[in-house]
């Protein structure tokens, strides 16, 4: 029985990178578009959210969500076209 380790490695690597990336992007999106980030931002010292409702952070949040949607769309394209 021969096992295709290269393909298994590819699946593992892709999954790790894309899952961590997507969950991270979604989290950034939520942080960027939230309004309560002011208190938690100062307490936690996060570099991302100053006051959550400033236009720049909100725009950044929307960009992150759009990237998540793009990844989902790519996945659906792979299924449909494959």
């Amino acid at each position, binding site marked *: 029985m021969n096992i295709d380790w290269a*393909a298994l490695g590819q*699946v593992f690597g892709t999954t790790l990178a894309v899952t961590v990336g997507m969950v991270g992007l979604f989290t950034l999106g939520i942080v960027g578009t939230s309004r309560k980030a002011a208190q938690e931002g100062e307490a936690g010292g996060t570099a991302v959210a100053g006051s959550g409702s400033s236009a720049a952070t909100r725009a950044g949040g929307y960009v992150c969500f759009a990237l998540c949607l793009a990844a989902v769309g790519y*996945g659906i394209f792979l*299924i449909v076209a494959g």
Partner: protein
Amino acid sequence: MGKGITDIQPPQGFAAQTGAAVTILASSHLGFALSTTQVCSGAVMGSGLGRKGGVVRWSTAGRMVIAWGLTLPAAGLVSAGAAFLAGQGDWGITTVAVLGLAICGAIWAASRRKPVDSSNVNDVTPVESAEPAGVVTAALQTVSPPPAGTTTTGAGTIDGIPAQAAPHSPTPATTAVR
């Protein structure tokens, strides 16, 4: 899966489902078959462990693995028998159909003795004896801080492991020297 193996909240559910979806998509794109159930279970277990203070009930996970190990050969044997019977002719096919209906009916009737419906589907079964924390969980617990935000005492502890000592309390050895 979200209550029996580990306790997860919506963020863990999101991470688990994303991981499962990407694994399944990547794997089928490369051309290999896999079991969606096993991928989802693994994802839920992983996200349960990944949450700060998360605990996986390995006994439940172990029972699931045993069930997977048994159901594959069991399903194989049952369908081999059914295929053999159905191959005998029209009477064989009818027999298989009747037997299938009868067995399904019997299992359904047995399940109605203790019905699970919308009133009790989310109940967590009470544990008869507190499950002793496993080696991995104990090791993780001693080096990681308890989950933030708990206001009730003992909420962040696991039975069988002493509560986390305060991070800056001086050790007896250093204060006893005179």
